[in-house]
């Protein structure tokens, strides 16, 4: 989502502290002002509390699991078997990291291509059309993409891609079998491809913003030296936009980590390692969606909450990293 860039503000950061005269100071202590400020402070503290409550409440709900298994062995245990009351989060953590990073690897180059093409190469009407289309992709609800995946994409991929590869490997390359596994309709590769498609619009929008922030003069200087379009991009535009693009990629990664519905519908839900490429797998959000409604055992319930707790921390970590990179961008702006 593109926000309106913050442009104007109080001149020289003076804020509204105009406590120069007795009159104004008295004005600001007017009952209306005090009441309004109280309301604003109260309502926005509720939002601040909400963010804190999220960490605290989910942690408290997950506490029985941490007591039963310990923080680290819950992370490293490879089995998740609610019937035997053994809960380990490693399959889901690995599943989330593997799907997200693979999807990101698949998405980054096409997304950068779209962003560069629409901002540097395409004529304005075409660029507007491309931007519009990519934004449209971001607006499609995850569950609708999941539906298309279930009824259309996954069965077709199984028949047209997974089965032929599997049959070929069966005859020609048996060493590949443990890696690709027996093809199932809903599997790791399907979920990763859909995930890649779903994060592309975020990567495009964020890299577009970063490229858009490159000053005109930067380009014009390169043009004036006789550079071709690609050389202008390569030497003048991309180095300048680099930090913004990296921050955008990190934010897209955070999106991928938390993407829930489409992945939950297409990954096939296998709760134990090892995963194979064409076999079912699971991620942290997918196990929450697929098991939460059936979690009657207290330990099962708290273990799902514990998975949510780790998901919270992974997401917050990536988001903080992204904003740190972005901060570096704004600091280095004068220097570049």
């Amino acid at each position: 989502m593109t926000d309106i860039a913050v442009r104007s503000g109080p001149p020289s950061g003076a804020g509204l502290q105009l406590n120069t005269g007795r009159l104004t100071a008295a004005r600001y202590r007017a009952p209306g002002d005090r009441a309004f400020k109280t309301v604003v402070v109260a309502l926005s503290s509720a939002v601040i509390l909400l963010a804190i409550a999220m960490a605290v409440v989910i942690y408290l709900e997950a506490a029985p699991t941490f007591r039963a298994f310990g923080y680290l062995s819950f992370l490293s245990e490879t089995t998740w078997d609610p019937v035997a009351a053994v809960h380990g989060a490693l399959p889901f953590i690995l599943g989330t990291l593997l799907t997200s990073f693979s999807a990101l690897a698949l998405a980054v180059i096409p997304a950068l291509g779209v962003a560069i093409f629409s901002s540097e190469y395409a004529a304005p009407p075409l660029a507007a059309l491309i931007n519009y289309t990519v934004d449209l992709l971001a607006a499609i609800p995850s569950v609708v993409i999941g539906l298309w995946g279930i009824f259309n994409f996954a069965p077709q991929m199984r028949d047209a891609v997974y089965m032929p590869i599997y049959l070929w490997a069966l005859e020609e390359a048996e060493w590949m079998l443990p890696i690709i596994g027996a093809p199932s309709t809903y599997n790791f590769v399907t979920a990763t491809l859909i995930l890649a498609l779903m994060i592309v619009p975020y990567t495009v929008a964020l890299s577009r913003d970063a490229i858009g922030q490159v000053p005109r003069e930067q380009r014009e200087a390169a043009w004036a030296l006789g550079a071709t379009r690609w050389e202008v991009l390569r030497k003048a535009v991309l180095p300048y936009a680099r930090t913004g693009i990296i921050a955008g990629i990190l934010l897209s990664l955070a999106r991928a980590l938390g993407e829930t519905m489409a992945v939950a519908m297409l990954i096939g839900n296998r709760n134990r390692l090892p995963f194979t490429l064409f076999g079912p797998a699971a991620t942290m959000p997918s196990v929450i969606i697929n098991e939460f409604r059936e979690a009657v055992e207290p330990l099962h319930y708290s273990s799902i909450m514990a998975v949510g707790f780790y998901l919270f921390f992974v997401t917050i970590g990536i988001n903080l990293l992204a904003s740190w990179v972005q901060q570096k961008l704004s600091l280095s702006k004068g220097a570049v």
Partner: protein
Amino acid sequence: MTLRTRYLRDRTIEVALVLLTLLVVVPLFIIILYVIMNGFSALNFSFFTEELGSPARAMQGRPTGLMHSIIGTIVIDLVALVMAVPFGIATGIMMSEYQEHPFAPVARLMTSTLNGMPAVLMGLLAYALVVKNTGGFSALAGSVALAFVMVPIIARTTESVLRVTPWNLREAGLSLGLPRWKVTTALVLPAARAGVVTGILIAFARAAGEAAPLLLTSFGNNYLSFNLTQPMDTLPQRLYSLAISPYKQWHAMGWGGAIILLLFVMVTFFVGRLVIRKLEKESHA
């Protein structure tokens, strides 16, 4: 490097970029095409007038529909909106108009944190706070979860919009002796009205497409219900249930639900987008 190879490389890159763009755009059209093709054939009169009922109803070919999901979506989303708007706008005001307040940077940090959180976690939180304490899945819990999704979006867009309203406006008001709250409510907010409404629309569209938090809170219901303390059906959560169900007839209804949800979300989203574009142009001028 000769000029010829440099131009050749420039051309090659351009072709590669066009191909990459097609690679992203084509799947989108495939998805939309499939939803439209399968969706419209699943729509009929009873789709909008009947409840879903038991699977047997669809298998025997008796009229069934998703009327209850459409109504439930509207009810739950509107209740969520009513809850989210005051908090969202107040936080936006805090971050833009009270920048000297010690809470402003904290609010900004928390808002962006919440914005990046997966919606499924909002569902877990609403479950622990509402469902557990009231003793059962309920539409109200669903609204709370969706309100959690909406608040940070409304707060952030409100802040951005308030910040781009000209600073002179505030100075003019203050110099006339208006108290600060009057400046905010009578000058700044009305000037930013279109943008604030857009933020609300975008938050609404985003929440309307969310299935994950609702699966954990409002649960779903095969029949029409207006009781906020009982489970209620919504389109996104119903789509998920229909898609993973074993019944062919329900799969067809899933496509029908998908096209309704898609239209609803996209229209809301793009009305919001248009207003934002227009505002951006105005603030450039």
